[in-house]
C-alpha cells in the first residue's frame, strides 16, 4: 500500500467519523462545530478527486458560510432546543430506521462499485469548444458559457432565498437592519482579527475570481471569500449590517442575475441564440457578467446569514 493510498483511507475514515459525530453528538452546538471540520475534510476528499474548483466551493460555502449560519443559529437556540416536548423515537423504531438507512447506503455503495471504469463523458466536447470561449478553465466555461442558464437561475434562487428570509421579519422591523448594531467598544481580539484578515482576504477573493478564467477558482469561490470577509467585520461588530431597504443593497443583490439575463437576451438579438456570446467577445462578456455575479454573491451570502431584519428602520 502506498503512502497516498494510506492517506486516502485515513481521510475517508476521518471524514466518516466526524460526520457520525455531527449526527450523534449530544449538543447541537458541538454538532455544528463538527460540521465545519467535516466540511474542511470533505474539501480534501474533493482535491483527491481532482476537482479543485469543487473543493474551493465546499471549503468556502459548504463548510465556512454554512458553518457560520448553523453555529450562530445553535448559539441563539441554546436552552430552547431541549424543551422536553420532543418525541424521541423508541429504541425499536431507531433500530428499524438505522437498518433502512444502512440499506440505502449499501445500495448506493453497490452502484458506486458497479460503475464502469470509463463512463460517458462530456469532457471532449467541453474541451473542443474551450478556445471559442477564450477561457482556460473548463469548469468556468460550463458554468458561464455552456450551461449559463442554470447558473443564472441559481442566482435567482439566491435572491428568492433572501426575499424569503426577509419576509420572516416582524411587521415593524420591515426595511430595518438585521444582525447586531455596531459596538461602542468592539471585542479587541475579534476586532484585531477582522482588521488583519479582511484586507488580505479581499485580495485573495478578488484573485481567486480573476484567475478563475484559466485556473481553478471563479465567481462563486471568490464571491464567497469576499462574503466571509464582510461577515468577519460584522461579527467583530466593527460595522453593522445595512438596512434592508437601502437602495444600493437591493441593487447589488439583483445586479448579478439582471446583468446575466440581459447578456443572455442580448445574445438572442446579436449572436443568434439565447445566451450565445458573439465570437471574439466571449471572454470579455463572460468576465463582465462574472464581475457582477461576484458582487451579488458577496452581498447575498452575508444577508442570508444575517437573517431577517431585527431593528426598526431609521428614516
Amino acid at each position, binding site marked *: 500500500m502506498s503512502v497516498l493510498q494510506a492517506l486516502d483511507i485515513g481521510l475517508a475514515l476521518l471524514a466518516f467519523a466526524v460526520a457520525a459525530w455531527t449526527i450523534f453528538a449530544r449538543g447541537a452546538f458541538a454538532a455544528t462545530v463538527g460540521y465545519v471540520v467535516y466540511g474542511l475534510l470533505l474539501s480534501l476528499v474533493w482535491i483527491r478527486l481532482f476537482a479543485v474548483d469543487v473543493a474551493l466551493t465546499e471549503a468556502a*460555502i459548504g463548510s465556512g458560510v454554512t458553518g457560520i449560519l448553523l453555529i450562530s443559529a445553535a448559539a441563539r437556540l441554546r436552552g430552547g432546543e431541549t424543551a422536553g416536548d420532543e418525541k424521541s423515537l423508541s429504541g425499536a423504531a431507531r433500530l428499524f430506521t438505522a437498518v433502512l438507512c444502512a440499506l440505502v447506503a449499501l445500495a448506493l455503495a453497490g452502484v458506486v462499485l458497479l460503475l464502469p471504469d470509463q463512463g460517458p463523458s462530456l469532457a471532449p466536447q467541453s474541451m473542443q469548444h474551450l478556445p471559442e470561449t477564450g477561457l482556460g478553465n473548463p469548469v468556468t466555461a460550463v458554468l458561464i458559457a455552456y450551461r449559463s442558464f442554470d447558473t443564472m437561475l441559481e442566482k435567482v434562487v439566491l435572491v428568492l432565498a433572501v426575499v424569503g428570509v426577509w419576509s420572516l421579519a416582524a411587521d415593524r422591523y420591515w426595511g430595518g437592519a438585521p444582525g447586531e448594531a455596531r459596538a461602542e467598544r468592539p471585542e479587541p481580539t475579534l476586532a484585531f482579527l477582522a482588521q488583519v484578515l479582511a484586507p488580505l482576504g479581499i485580495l485573495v477573493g478578488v484573485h481567486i475570481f480573476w484567475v478563475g478564467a484559466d485556473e481553478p477558482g471563479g465567481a462563486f469561490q471568490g464571491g464567497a471569500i469576499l462574503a466571509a470577509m464582510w461577515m468577519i467585520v460584522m461579527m467583530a461588530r466593527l460595522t453593522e449590517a445595512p438596512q434592508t431597504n437601502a437602495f444600493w443593497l437591493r441593487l447589488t443583490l439583483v445586479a448579478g442575475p439582471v446583468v446575466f439575463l440581459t447578456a443572455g437576451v442580448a445574445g438572442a438579438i446579436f449572436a443568434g441564440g439565447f445566451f450565445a456570446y458573439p465570437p471574439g467577445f466571449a471572454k470579455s462578456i463572460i468576465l463582465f457578467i462574472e464581475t457582477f455575479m461576484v458582487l451579488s454573491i458577496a452581498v447575498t451570502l452575508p444577508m442570508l446569514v444575517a437573517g431577517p431584519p431585527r431593528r426598526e428602520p431609521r428614516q
Partner: protein
Amino acid sequence: MTSATLAGLVGAALVGLGLYGLVANPQPLRKILAFNLMGSGVFLVFGIVARKGAAVGLQADPVPQAMVITGIVVAFAASALAVALVLRLFEDTGQVTLNPEAWTKPPEDGAEAG
C-alpha cells in the same frame, strides 16, 4: 481500490448517515444539519461520476463538477431559509419543536399565545 471509488463509498455512507439523522433526530436544527450531510454525500457520489468521465487529458469531467458547485450554493440558500424559519419559530413560541401537540397545548401560565 482507487481513491475515486473510496470517495464514492464515503459518499454512500454519508447519505445513509444523513438520512438516519434526518429521521431520528427530533430537533429541527439537527435535521437541517443532517440534510446537509446527506446532500454532500450525494455530491460526492456524483463527484466520482465526474472522475470516471476523465478524458482528453482532463482529470475529471467538468460538467458534473459545475453542477456540484451550483448544487452547493443552492443547498446553502435552502439551509439559510430553513434556519431563518426555525429561528422565527423560536422567537414566537419560545421553543423549537416539530411536535404539533406542543403548539396546540393551551399556554400554561395564561401568557398570551404566540
